[in-house]
């Protein structure tokens, strides 16, 4: 065995480090039902809270009568806005620079809005008491359509903002307008459009959906009156920021606020924000001096805590006759609901939507997003994607198909003609991003070969001749993930870095803590693998902890695929610090100078003398008893990592769908997903994340939608109606990869778990639309439920039976 393969064997097999498809360390507890989620937390004397919510989309509150509820035995309190007013907590700031009513103050602006909270001995009494709270409403006209919200005489949704012509992101032009966000050179883009040989334009809605994690949101707040300490267990993807916000709002010193995120049953962006339920539960605990648990029901989760998307987009491309794209223009009406509670870095009201030039070298581009208030639930979070990246990727991936159709060019060919070429990296996009690395043509070519693309197109032609509907969808997407850097990205002023603290114990085992927070991403496994490779101790003996703000180092949390780009980088650099100190200890033990040593994966060896070596295990022991003169004992390191740039994972997906002409049912026959996330830490974990993200993409494309009727009533906010596919409906996935490391990340890794969602949705969409492309169809709105597709089929007369 040569040295390189020996090192590989050591790293992968013995240490189970980077590249090893080891099993997940967290799974034994999860699959045995031993996870500890919010609802598993039970404190002595704990009370239960239940929200009273608005049954109307828009109404004035004329009165709230709590007497009957308070009269029910076992009820301890019924809190309304009036109770929060003296504390100035009836409104709270949002992450997007707006304010949100904690409990409705004189009026409600969406169905399900929080009006009062009942606190009782148990859940059953709380539920009965909530029914007894009498609220008198006077209904107001409702707007659920963002286009209508901007009509001059549209009802005023946010009376609290009367007279405020400036919002957190500049000028407001209408009482239901939140912000206008522009990027790119509009004039340059317009000029290109004016002269272009070919232009295409398409309007598309990315429907309102919900991240719908299996575990709903909730908290247990516990205020210790004697010590003046507040402990909050919370389903939070970002516990440290929550602690800071709680300290700021409550005036309790941050050192006396303990926020703990236990195991989280899925987040997908739904658990980034701070919800009224948390705030009122905290107040209730402070007032009553007892722990208070508040956990959402399924319907509450789907109808009140952070939705995603609701982007109404118009995309335009200008190109030459060969299909070379010269310019892009995009306009978005962004429906943010009744309060702007988007969870984006504070200076980015439309998130990273400016990644909408995608994988293509587009010389001129301009995008504009207008945020709008409607009588719908607040939110607009990044559901399994980096901030607004799915929306951005959707519009460009769709527009490239529309252009191909217009020019009668193959959809793969148009992509190949427009890709940013490998030698152009690092590549600066016309909307201001610096793409770190990529090889788009290689990825697409690999997929086309694997699926026999030309064979599929031949088959499609034959089927079309027989009147059958078969579609082939491509998506060659690029993501932008891993916020910071600090200079451009912050949340409420706190820079978006992340952190790792590691301590090696005398026996060579270790504990490492992070500012991120896993919700299913397997951080306990993959962080340990990074550290195993960097430090040379097995990943099995490296314990990973996150989520307890008392013990973990400060960090900004997990969303937008930022853990590996930031926390993973911090792990690698902290590991290297450990190794540097270990080198000095080894030199001392071997009585040579540090420069005479070489690293062998799990030991320092005197150069060229294999039997003169000290393993990390031996060095760890020495760190506690036999150190060089003047060196402090112990073996610890801390790294706060401010990424120099984001990372740009990419992929090439191909979907083949057959559509039943008589029922409209789409059947995904094949889905081939090639991902490039740079260095692959754990191939099995990656595959699992890809499967999950694709399943969620399938759900969005084929069935998910939060539909409001004209009265502002949300239709079908339960899993009977809201489409969550099971293993039976979910297609079979074929996965593949290429490896193009990130040049600026310490181990060359990029984020990955959101790529399948970002790339998946447009692949499904493009496949379904491609099935109709020969009939002149350039766009169909998601979700592709059988009846919608049947409607199109029927309108086109394709369901006629011959004979």
């Amino acid at each position, binding site marked *: 065995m040569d040295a390189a393969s020996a090192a590989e064997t050591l790293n992968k097999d013995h240490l189970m480090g980077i590249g090893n498809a080891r099993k997940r360390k967290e799974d034994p507890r999860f699959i045995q039902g031993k996870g500890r989620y919010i609802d598993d937390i039970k404190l002595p004397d704990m009370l239960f809270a239940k929200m009273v919510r608005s049954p109307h989309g828009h109404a004035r509150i004329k009165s709230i009568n709590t007497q009957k509820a308070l009269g029910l035995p076992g009820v301890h309190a019924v809190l309304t806005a009036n109770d929060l007013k003296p504390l100035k907590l009836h409104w709270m700031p949002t992450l997007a620079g707006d304010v949100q009513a904690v409990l409705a103050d004189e009026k409600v602006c969406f169905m399900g809005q929080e009006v009062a909270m009942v606190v009782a001995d148990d859940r*059953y009494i709380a539920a009965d008491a909530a029914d007894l709270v009498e609220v008198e409403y006077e209904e107001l006209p409702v707007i659920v359509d963002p286009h209508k919200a901007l009509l001059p005489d549209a009802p005023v949704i946010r009376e609290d903002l009367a007279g405020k012509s400036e919002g957190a992101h500049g000028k407001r032009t209408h009482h239901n307008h939140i912000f206008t966000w522009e990027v790119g050179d509009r004039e340059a883009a317009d000029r290109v459009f004016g002269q272009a040989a070919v232009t295409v334009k398409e309007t598309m809605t990315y429907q309102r959906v919900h991240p719908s994690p299996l575990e709903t949101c909730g908290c247990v707040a516990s205020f210790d009156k004697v010590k003046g300490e507040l402990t909050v267990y919370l389903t939070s993807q970002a516990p440290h920021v929550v602690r800071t916000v709680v300290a700021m709002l409550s005036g309790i010193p941050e050192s006396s606020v303990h926020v703990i995120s236990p195991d989280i049953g899925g987040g997908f962006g739904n658990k980034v924000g701070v919800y009224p339920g948390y705030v009122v539960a905290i107040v209730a605990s402070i007032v009553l001096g007892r722990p208070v648990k508040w956990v959402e029901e399924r319907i509450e989760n789907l109808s009140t805590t952070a939705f995603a998307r609701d982007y109404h987009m118009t995309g335009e491309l200008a190109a030459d006759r060969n299909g070379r794209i010269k310019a892009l223009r995009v306009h978005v009406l962004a429906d943010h609901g009744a309060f702007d509670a988007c969870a984006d870095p504070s200076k980015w009201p439309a998130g990273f939507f400016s990644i909408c030039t995608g994988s293509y070298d587009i010389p001129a581009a301009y995008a504009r997003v207008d945020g709008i208030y409607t009588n719908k639930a607040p939110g607009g979070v990044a559901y399994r994607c980096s901030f607004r990246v799915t929306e951005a990727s959707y519009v460009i991936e769709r527009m490239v198909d529309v252009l191909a159709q217009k020019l009668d060019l193959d959809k793969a060919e148009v992509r190949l003609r427009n890709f940013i070429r490998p030698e152009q990296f690092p590549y600066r996009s016309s909307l201001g991003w610096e793409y770190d690395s990529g090889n788009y043509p290689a990825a697409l070519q690999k997929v086309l070969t694997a699926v026999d693309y030309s064979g599929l197109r031949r088959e499609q032609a034959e089927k079309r001749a027989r009147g059958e509907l078969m579609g082939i969808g491509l998506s060659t997407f690029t993501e932008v993930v891993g916020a910071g850097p600090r200079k451009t990205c912050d949340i409420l002023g706190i820079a978006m870095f992340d952190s790792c603290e590691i301590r090696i114990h005398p026996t060579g085992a270790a504990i490492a803590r992070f500012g991120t927070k896993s919700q299913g991403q397997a951080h306990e496994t993959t962080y340990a693998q990074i550290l195993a490779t960097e430090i040379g101790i097995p990943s099995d003996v490296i314990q990973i902890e996150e989520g307890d703000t008392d013990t973990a180092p400060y960090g900004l949390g997990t969303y937008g695929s930022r853990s590996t780009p930031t926390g993973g980088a911090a792990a690698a650099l902290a590991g290297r610090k450990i190794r540097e100190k270990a080198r000095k200890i080894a030199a001392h033990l071997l009585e040579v100078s540090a420069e005479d040593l070489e690293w062998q994966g799990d030991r320092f060896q005197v150069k060229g003398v294999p039997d003169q070596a000290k393993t990390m295990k031996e060095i760890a022991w020495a760190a506690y008893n036999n150190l060089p003169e003047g060196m402090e004992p112990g073996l610890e390191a801390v790294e706060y990592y401010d990424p120099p740039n984001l990372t740009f994972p990419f992929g090439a997906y191909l979907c083949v769908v057959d559509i039943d002409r008589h029922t*409209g049912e789409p059947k995904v026959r094949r889905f081939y997903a090639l991902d490039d996330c740079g260095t692959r830490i754990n191939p099995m974990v990656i595959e699992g994340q890809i499967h999950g993200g694709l399943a969620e993409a399938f759900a969005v494309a084929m069935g998910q939608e939060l539909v409001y009727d004209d009265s502002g009533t949300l239709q079908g906010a339960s899993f009977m109606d809201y489409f969550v596919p099971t293993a039976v409906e979910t297609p079979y996935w074929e996965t593949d990869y290429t490896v193009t490391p990130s040049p600026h990340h310490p181990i060359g890794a990029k984020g990955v778990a959101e790529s399948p969602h970002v790339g998946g949705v447009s692949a499904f969409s493009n496949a379904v639309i491609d099935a109709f492309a020969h009939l002149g169809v350039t766009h169909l709105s998601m979700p592709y*439920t059988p009846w*919608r597709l049947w409607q199109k089929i029927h309108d086109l007369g394709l369901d006629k039976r011959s004979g």
Partner: protein
Amino acid sequence: MIPASFEYHRARTIDEALELLAKYGEDAKILAGGQSLLPMMKLRLASPGHLVDISEVAQLKELREADGLIRIGAAATETALLHSALLRGKCPLIGEAAAQIGDPQIRNRGTLGGNLAHGDPGNDHPSVMIALGASVIARGPAGERRLPMDGFYRGLYDTQLEPLELLTEIQVPTPPARSGAAYLKLKRKIGDFATAASAVQLSLGEGDTCARIGIALTNVAPMPLRLSGAEALLAGKRITAELIEQAAQIATGACDAADDFHGPSEYRAQMAGEMTRRALAGALERARRD
């Protein structure tokens, strides 16, 4: 999702169940599998003061054949129907429908009697039982009655059962040789009610003519729909593609479906036709092979 408070009673025999019902009157509800009743209670759409649980009454779980009738206890679970060799051999339509109801957890608890008594037009067994020409036995203070499934439903959640009556048994005439059946259900996903579904049970006679046929639709009207017109069209004839097409048109024309997330009424009516088309073709092929 917490129901209002109620008292729970477990009946051990049919008589005990009837006594409890008589005692608590309108304030009592029978609890079988609870798969429809409990969700309604949790949403507080129903709040009975007393529940009389019949799920452990042994007499109500029997499944046997006697005198040309397949007799199924009202509390037999979907899972029991699925695993019954008797049904698989002699009346596969029931198991075929049961397999398309809910998911394994729902099927482990949900009962045939509950599915029929509930009166939800989305439930699958009612149309199946109508197609099979089945009857149910109801027992109450006034004694026992036999009610044909055709005509059992009066409207949405409204049946011929009296408040103090217990549905005890389902009686299905054993299909003769050369029978075939199919239950075609269009749904979005596991655990979903039908967008539209069609049940067909037919028997062939001399020269492959249709000796008996039952056709009924699920979830395209406030109650299950028996397609008497289509049955009359096909009875006594050799079933051809043209006749199937006509029967499918009749199915579409008969529908009175609501718009919902499964689709608008027109789509659901068209799908009732499509499911009928497929169910007829499938049942016919099976009958020819039987």
